[in-house]
């Protein structure tokens, strides 16, 4: 076999800079044909930038792209698709109100000369493709009715339908529970056996080690190593990725307190539409002082509603919310926050930050009534700025000063700012929703440390997370939510990701 045909994709010397950031440089990547090639790296290491380069979403500043021995310049994804490259994005791009078949052919519809759709042709081709990946579902089902794992399968079929022989999967397992991950891997292994090449982006080391043939590690914008699962273990691969020791979320020395800081009892919350089933049903739990209660669950199973109900942002149908011994079920959000409740929101862009405002206004948000920062109805700008500088220093927010608008910060630093703001109002109860989502390992460790310190000082924490490692490592107790109910109470010392996964998918439920 010549070299040209041995490699499906060869990237040499790829560099790509954005204003102020060198996202990629000296990238060297060789992907053998019909293999699963994992690309691992921390968030922000430059994996996505590299894949966008390969998929033609932007052009590299330097370097060459060779596909199947032929050098290419991709001006747009259309060029990349023509060269047989397909990409499945982390966020699905499907039309809910169309069927599986319609979604797959959308944009590439087989039609007769007069423009009449030839659905039967498409259907046969789709069935053939489904056989090739070992997927089985009715192609006439509406996508809205499919689960997350099945939707992902549709995305993959869509790409294959367009003739892709090289498949890029961008963090495909981020949204899946462990059982769905296994199914996905079975599918892609079948594809690879038939000659397809899969490039698999991830930062979950266990998966990478389990499924890939070769692994390329990206750190701080460049490729630092290419290895195989046989040559490395989880620890050494992690160290390659981070360049130093991995942070470890576990460990505590203090005792959980006896004071109940937050109590939710028999809580029901109505569904989105009138007559729809309840969004929350009979939710009951307590958070003590110095305790971290973790909530696990696939997103959209009621975690958001629990937070909203505790904050008083959504009406409660039945049940009570008690904060520090006071019944707050009907209290206004401001009152609840004033008693010492803090909230690190699910999505910092949607609920946490004023992106266009300077940092000192962002650290002030929600703390308008805090003494010292305002006097009467007026703001005290100097105090606000000084306070902001303190938050920035204490939480290690990387920024030139407090006058920069929030959008100029990287995601991790934005998150540190939000966490810093919420912690600096000295809360007694903290609702932390995905406190370290989408940020790098260093910032993650810093945030975990802050939460742990505050917990040791008596803070009660309700931790909602999709990162099972974070949940197991930080929590004193883990609740699993499924379909608007709490379906399991687990001990983090004995809980495994697989066990959590079984409860999260609803496969297992505790008898109520």
């Amino acid at each position: 076999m010549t070299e040209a045909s041995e490699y499906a994709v060869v990237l040499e010397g790829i560099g790509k800079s954005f204003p102020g950031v060198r996202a990629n440089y000296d990238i060297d990547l060789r992907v053998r044909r019909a293999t699963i090639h994992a690309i691992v790296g921390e968030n922000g290491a430059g994996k996505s930038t590299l894949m966008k380069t390969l998929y033609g979403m932007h052009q590299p500043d330097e370097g060459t792209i060779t596909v199947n021995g032929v050098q290419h310049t991709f001006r747009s994804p259309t060029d990349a698709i023509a060269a047989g490259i397909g990409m499945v994005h982390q966020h699905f791009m499907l039309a809910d109100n169309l069927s599986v078949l319609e979604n797959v052919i959308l944009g590439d519809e087989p039609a007769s000369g007069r423009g009449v759709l030839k659905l039967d042709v498409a259907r046969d081709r789709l069935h053939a493709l489904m056989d090739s990946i070992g997927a089985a579902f009715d192609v006439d089902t509406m996508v809205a009715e499919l689960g997350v794992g099945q939707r992902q399968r549709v995305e993959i079929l869509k790409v294959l339908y367009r003739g892709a022989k090289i498949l890029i999967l961008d963090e495909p397992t981020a949204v899946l529970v462990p059982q769905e991950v296994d199914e996905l891997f079975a599918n892609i292994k079948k594809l690879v056996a038939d000659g397809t090449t899969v490039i698999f982006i991830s930062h979950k080391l266990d998966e990478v080690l389990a499924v890939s043939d070769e692994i390329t590690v990206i750190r701080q914008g460049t490729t630092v190593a290419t290895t195989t699962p046989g040559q490395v273990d989880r620890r050494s691969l992690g160290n390659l990725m981070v360049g130093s020791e991995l942070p470890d979320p576990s460990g505590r020395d203090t005792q959980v307190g006896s004071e109940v800081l937050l109590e939710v009892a028999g809580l029901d919350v109505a569904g989105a539409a009138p007559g729809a089933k309840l969004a929350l049903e009979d939710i009951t739990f307590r958070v003590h002082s110095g305790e971290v209660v973790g909530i696990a669950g696939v997103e959209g199973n009621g975690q958001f509603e629990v937070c909203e109900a505790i904050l008083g942002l959504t009406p409660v149908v039945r049940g009570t919310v008690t904060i520090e011994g006071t019944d707050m079920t009907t209290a206004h959000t401001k009152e609840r926050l004033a008693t010492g409740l803090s909230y690190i929101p699910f999505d910092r862009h949607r609920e946490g930050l004023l992106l266009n405002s300077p940092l000192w206004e962002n650290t002030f948000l929600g703390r308008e009534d805090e003494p010292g920062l305002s006097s009467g109805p007026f703001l005290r700008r100097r105090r606000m700025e000084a306070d902001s500088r303190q938050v920035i220093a204490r939480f290690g927010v990387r920024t030139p000063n407090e006058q920069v608008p929030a959008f100029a910060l990287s995601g991790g630093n934005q998150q540190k700012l939000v966490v810093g703001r919420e912690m600096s109002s000295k809360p007694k109860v903290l609702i932390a929703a995905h406190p370290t989502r989408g940020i790098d390992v260093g910032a993650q460790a810093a945030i975990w440390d802050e939460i742990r310190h505050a917990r040791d000082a008596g803070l009660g924490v309700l931790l909602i997370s999709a990162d099972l490692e974070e949940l197991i490592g930080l929590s004193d107790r883990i609740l699993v939510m499924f379909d608007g109910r709490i379906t399991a109470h687990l001990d983090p010392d004995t809980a495994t990701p697989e066990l959590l996964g079984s409860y999260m998918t609803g496969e297992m439920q505790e008898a109520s």
Partner: protein
Amino acid sequence: MNQPLDESLEKLTKTIASTPKVGSGRFQRMAVTSASSLFAVFVALAICAVLLWVTDKDWVKAYSTLFGAVTEERVLYDTLQRATPLFISAAAVSIGFKMNLFNIGVEGQMRVALLATAVAGAAVRLPAVLHVAFCLAVAMIAGALWGGIAGFLKVKRGVNEVISTIMLNFIALSLVAWAFDDFFRDESNTEGVLVKTKELPSTAWMPDLVDKPKLGGTLIVALVVLLLFWVLVWKTKFGFRLRASGGNAGAARATGVNPGRMIAISMLISGALAGLVGMNRLMGDVHAYQNNLGEQQGFNGISVALLGQKHPVGILFSGLLFGFLSAASGKLQLEDIPKEIVTIMQGIIVLAVVIINGVIQRWDERRIQRKAAAQLEQLAAAEAVA
């Protein structure tokens, strides 16, 4: 917390405090927004010059006549006189913008307030200062009530305020015309064909600052409005919450700010200010309601607000520019140049500023990001040396 940690924290806080601020600070952003407004004005001047040139008019002469008028005292007073309602109306529009509301209904709110004030003001007898205050209060309440309808519809029924305020403009126009014609016209106070309401007693007249050339006292009201607008929006907790809700409703909501309440309040304030827009004509000049009173000032305020970048200082300059253009436009006719070119110019300015703002903003955001990254690298390098 232990001692050394505290000390190092303090040191770090000081380092952050001592890094240069002007770089990515607000002054540079202000300079950038001002520049985009200025640029928009020049683009408009250039396009109008081309328009004049293709229609065989002498554009050099047109502009020298127009801007030559700046030396004339009469034109300058007239500029202030014409800018007065624009200041208020632009403030009314801008306060809506701060909450992400586009109040196109200033015109209608103003019209309702005009008739209400003319009728109520003429119906009561009060001492001079009180009577003026009473009239201003009636104007603000009437405007707030009419603007409040749009706020109510948005909060309770989710009706887009752009649609509802446009519709309410038409309703206000017809409703006021009908009420005026059927109930409030006063035949005894009619000059020629111009029908008016009963004249306001002289205690309700807004005193002039300067008699000749005329400069009405409403200018003071307008300047106070701009000042209060600035204090309220940028210096108070309420203003912060308003801007927070406008900037990111989700984030404001999570801190306990009720977005519906903010929408209602900002529509009420916006309407109250809109109610004041016509007062320089009603209380300072005509002293009775007539059909063309204050016409278009509500719409012109939108242009002035956009050119003034929704900031009181910007509104001051753009209001003066628009006031000057219309004050000086009469001069053009003497040179056989259609004065409508000024209206066209004002229109192009607004289009240009919207387009240029969009482009410049994106450029500015990239510039700030680049700058922040560069400063961070410097900081890291400095730390490494230390």
